[in-house]
């Protein structure tokens, strides 16, 4: 019966409840979307492996490292696989059709990234064809590419038209894997450069290294950097996660702003729900006095009010969570090139639910306290 009363009370003032539920839905939707934007920013960090290190020029990523370092790195204890690559910076047809593209040593690179799932025949063809390229499924879908197509990129760092034959399309092993990347052979890039600018050849932008286990990451990184100390191109080695976090740190102010906005949204809806509950309880203070007269105690009155607050926020929260999925899909379609992976994580949904419950509880506390502490005689006087 208590639940019957609190449910019916929740829908007593239909317009008010509807508007509050709408407000709650929009707040949770916004909160979920903002959280997902933050998650999308961190997706590279999330997808990082603890057993992968990244070595780059200690001055800046812009400066490259000699290919000869590869053999030195290979000899360092704990190192299993060494691969390397270059940021290519090309675009397809139009400059606004931007996507990440890398020249990599294909065989070792794919060994390092088992999360890129490729059909065996496509893998073999990509590795064996010097002009071959491998792209993520989302990227292939975006431009309508299929295996066997010739794809021409226009280089920005390495000028000219670059033709590739699409040899493979990879899919991510899980939803966190970026499926918008474009890979081709580093040898193809290096040989083409040799024809034009001989001084830039045999240099790589970065090394990716797999180590035996994550516990030796620090000492292996140190050993690598020590090997090239006082050389013309000193190195900076860090875990893949730290490397990715370095990129994220560049946008830290924006991320902080988004986090702040998501908290403000929650605070606003807390005030809105608290106001709704405050109005409802103020209007019904006489009824709570009647219930107290009949012998209802503080905990039962509290349950009625907190329960009503929870009903409103939970309906709004669930609606908001459900709406987040189509909203995220739409957002992803609209700005997919900036956020290649835009998935609502389980953690975001748990946070949405936690926020829903917290708002429900906090919004009900003060009105419940008021109803519980009002003197019966005073409450009864409000009727009539």
């Amino acid at each position: 019966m208590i639940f019957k009363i609190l449910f019916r009370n929740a829908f007593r003032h239909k317009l008010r409840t509807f508007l509050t539920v709408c407000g709650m839905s929009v707040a949770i939707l916004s909160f979920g979307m903002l959280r997902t934007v933050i998650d999308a920013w961190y997706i590279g960090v999330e997808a990082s492996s603890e057993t992968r290190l990244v070595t780059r020029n200690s001055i800046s990523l812009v400066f490259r490292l000699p290919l000869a370092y590869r053999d030195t790195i290979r000899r360092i204890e704990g190192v299993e696989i060494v691969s390397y690559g270059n940021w290519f910076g090309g675009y397809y047809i139009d400059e606004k059709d931007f996507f990440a593209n890398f020249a990599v040593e294909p065989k070792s690179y794919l060994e390092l990234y088992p999360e890129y799932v490729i059909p065996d025949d496509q893998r073999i063809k990509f590795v064996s064809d010097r002009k071959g390229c491998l792209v993520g499924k989302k990227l292939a879908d975006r431009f309508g590419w299929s295996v066997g197509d010739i794809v021409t990129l226009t280089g920005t760092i390495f000028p000219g038209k670059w033709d590739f034959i699409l040899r493979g399309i990879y899919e991510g092993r899980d939803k966190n894997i970026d499926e918008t990347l474009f890979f081709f052979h580093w040898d193809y890039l290096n040989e083409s450069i040799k024809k034009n600018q001989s001084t830039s050849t045999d240099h790589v932008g970065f090394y990716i290294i797999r180590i035996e286990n994550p516990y030796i990451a620090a000492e292996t990184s140190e050993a690598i950097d020590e090997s090239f100390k006082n050389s013309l191109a000193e190195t900076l080695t860090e875990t893949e996660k730290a490397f990715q976090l370095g990129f994220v740190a560049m946008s830290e102010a924006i991320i902080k702003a988004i986090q702040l906005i998501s908290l403000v949204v929650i605070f606003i809806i807390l005030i809105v729900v608290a106001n709704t509950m405050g109005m409802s309880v103020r209007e019904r203070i006489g009824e709570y006095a009647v219930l107290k007269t009949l012998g209802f105690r503080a905990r039962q009155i509290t349950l009625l009010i907190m329960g009503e607050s929870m009903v409103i926020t939970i309906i709004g929260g669930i609606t908001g969570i459900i709406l987040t999925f189509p909203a995220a899909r739409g957002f992803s379609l609209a700005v997919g090139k900036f956020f290649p992976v835009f998935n609502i994580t389980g953690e975001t949904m748990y946070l949405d639910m936690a926020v829903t419950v917290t708002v429900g509880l906090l919004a009900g506390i003060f009105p419940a306290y008021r109803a519980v502490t009002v003197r019966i005689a005073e409450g009864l006087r409000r009727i009539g």
Partner: protein
Amino acid sequence: MRNEDLILSIDNVYKSYHRDSQIIRVLEDISLELKRGAFLALMGPSGSGKSTLLNLIAGLDQVDQGTIEIDGVNITTLSETDLARWRSFNVGFIFQFYNLIPVLTAFENVELPLLLTGLSKRERQEHVSAAISVVNMEDRDGHYPNQLSGGQQQRVAIARAIVTDPTILVADEPTGDLDRTSAENVLDLMDRLNCDLGKTIIMVTHDPWAGNRAHSMEHLDKGVLNHDL
């Protein structure tokens, strides 16, 4: 009067309220005894303290001084929680404005006090049906308060008051919001509860016509009981 006949014993009760720095004396040195099965009308003009006295008797408010004993229980010594529990078993309330819960049907409103008793759903339904039949509202028990007339709502409120079979019934201006015919019906019903079922009733009213329906009368004037009238 033999002790076992007494259901209410009020002894030197004082009550005052604070308004800002002012102390307003509402009741002064009230002493009263009531026999089991009595039907008492507490009369007096507005502001005489009759509703305050009723609230004290019903355990809705605390005395400043003095004792109130109901059926052998000194309710002035009970804590807030104990008082709430005591009320749920011993007092039936009838209000001027019925005070039914609008989101519950007549049946559910009558069932409300039984939720605190630990009875099973079936037992509760039996009690509610019995109470509703006493007030002749069987055909309207599925109606919500806003679908009932004032007189019907008051009958439902009376059913809610008697459903727990309380020790006393307290009624605060039970006919104050009703037309004469409905008021007559309600007073008839209260008379029946008193005569046929032996319920002790204390009714506050400022209407002499309603007061005359009670079997005894006490007058309050400026917070003092006037036994001489």
